[in-house]
């Protein structure tokens, strides 16, 4: 771990000192020409797309986990769990391909609908009524990729709920949902939280799928339906081809360092929560 950080820093420092803008607040990415490059817009895109992905994916994932662990009869639960796990096995290039070619044109009607009826909310606004390769599409693709992780971990936690708690709730006359709310969910809370954090880490670091779905721009745009946007990881993949000089390579490595720091903090947090939850149980 330390080695990873050390070598990234080693290669990033010369480029950072050659930067003519502020690395953390500048928007553009032009290390060879004007010499200004900054991670602000990228970090914004990364966080926003990952958060949106969680908002879309987590309710579904928790629902899936509850359905598999509490509702489905055993004969169905096993294959269903397997199918959800398979979702995790599909390579990210394939998701990217699917997102870019199939999903992004097919989400246009939804974008139009959201813009027509909810356009007064800033995030659903549109600058010039063109839709397509937007943050929304990226978030949906990321949601699909985050889903199996969150679902698998939450399922494992829900299954471990003590039988006595569940039967006690049912014996007091609770309906199934009340039993889940009072016995299963409180027991699994720390597990679900850490699952969400791990999913967030995955979404933040996802590269290729986002690079294929988004058409890259370097602005901070709150209109999530507009085409454009970018993330740190996708930017590295996209700009790598024309990064031939030491400065431009170093600039990409520097942005990778920021990504590394973000995921390190996120994963560290998740693991601490998991360990603490285990110690309590």
């Amino acid at each position, binding site marked *: 771990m330390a080695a990873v950080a050390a070598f*990234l820093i080693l290669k990033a420092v010369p480029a950072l000192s050659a930067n003519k803008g502020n690395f953390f607040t500048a928007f553009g990415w032009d290390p060879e020409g004007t010499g200004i490059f900054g991670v602000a817009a990228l970090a914004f895109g990364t966080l926003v797309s990952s958060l949106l992905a969680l908002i879309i994916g987590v309710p579904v994932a928790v629902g899936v986990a509850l359905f598999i662990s509490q509702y489905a009869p055993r004969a169905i639960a096993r294959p269903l769990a397997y199918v*959800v796990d398979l*979702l995790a096995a*599909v390579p*990210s290039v394939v998701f990217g391909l699917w997102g870019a070619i199939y999903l992004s044109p097919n989400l246009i009607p939804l974008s139009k609908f959201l813009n027509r009826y909810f356009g007064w909310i800033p995030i659903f606004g549109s600058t010039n009524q063109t839709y397509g390769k937007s943050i929304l599409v990226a978030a949906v693709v990321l949601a699909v990729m985050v889903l199996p992780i969150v679902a698998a971990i939450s399922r494992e936690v829900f299954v471990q709920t003590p039988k006595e708690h569940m039967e006690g709730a049912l014996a007091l006359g609770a309906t199934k*949902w009340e039993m889940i709310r009072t016995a299963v969910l409180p027991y699994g809370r720390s597990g679900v939280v850490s699952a969400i954090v791990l999913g967030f880490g995955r979404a933040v670091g996802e590269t290729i799928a986002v690079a294929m779905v988004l058409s890259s721009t370097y602005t901070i745009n709150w209109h999530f339906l507009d085409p454009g946007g970018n993330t740190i990881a996708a930017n590295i993949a996209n700009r790598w081809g024309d990064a031939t000089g030491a400065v431009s390579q170093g600039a990409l490595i520097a942005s990778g360092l920021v990504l590394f720091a973000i995921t*390190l903090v996120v994963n560290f947090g998740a693991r601490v929560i998991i360990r603490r939850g285990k110690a309590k149980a």
Partner: protein
Amino acid sequence: MTTTVDDLSLARSSLARAKLPWWSPVVVAVGALLVTALIFLGASLHGYVSFILIAAVLYLLAQTFVSLAVEGWRHAKNRLMTSLMIVAMVLAVLPLVGVLGYTIAQGLGRFDSVFFTHSMRAVAESDPNGGAYHAIIGTLEQVGLATLISVPFGVMVAVYLVEYSVGRFGRVVSFFVDVMTGLPSIVAGLFILALWVLLLHQGFSGFAGSLALTILMLPTVVRSCEEMLKLVPVSLREASYALGVAKWLTVVRIVLPTALPGIVTGVMLAVARVMGETAPVLLTVFGNSAINTNPFSGPQASLPLFVFNEVGQSFDNAIHRAWSGALVLILIVLLLNLIARTVARFARVRG
């Protein structure tokens, strides 16, 4: 709470409230479909997606209100949540079916013998022929090398953690293995790029890609191997010690063979995961349109990279190649997954 006490529930005891008969969801569903059909005829809407959506929303609303009127709010809520979970399940399975189905449909177009026997050398992106032979070779070599490095190393780390470690150091190592699991693949690629390619001037090669993949594989292998070793019953180890067998021999002859099927499963899942990684390969292997069978010198191609590059071209023929590449990749990964799960099911660690 304040639902009208209707005749039905008066007739029953106060403890058991009225319940909807088992066929009520069917009736509500048919009703919802009919009403949706009427709406579509009346408002001249179209599109089967919106039809299903409107019908589903109507069904949920109708069911909740019927249940609210007859059974009370607690049961209404229960029914609503149950339905919502089924909706979640459907939503989760849809993308999988969508991705697989669409990839198969699009990928079969170029799933021919030329695709598997030719490289992209001297093939223009707009040409209809050309293939992924070079990419398949590259992927197999890079992933093979990564497996060769990470499996012995990973198994040894796991054996250390389970059998030998005492106290703080082991716990710290295992914690960092956990954190490493979440390392983004592109950061692993950047690391190898900075260390191997830029600092040591080794140049882009398949082997550099293997090193990056190794970083991604190691934590997965260590973690799954550790879980399997923990499952080996202590009584087996104690029996071995009681016969006077040394510790290392116990590990090699008793513990590892018992856990072997589980370890194989874990390794195969790790291989399947690493196989689809594009980002680290992009940074360290660089890509090549010709066949390069030597992973130790010169840029190679790889299947995910091939897909990524072909999509970047705006020609239809290139996109077709990308879909076929994706199909091959999916087939390999799913096959590995299936084998791994089958091994896991038929050869559990037995106590």
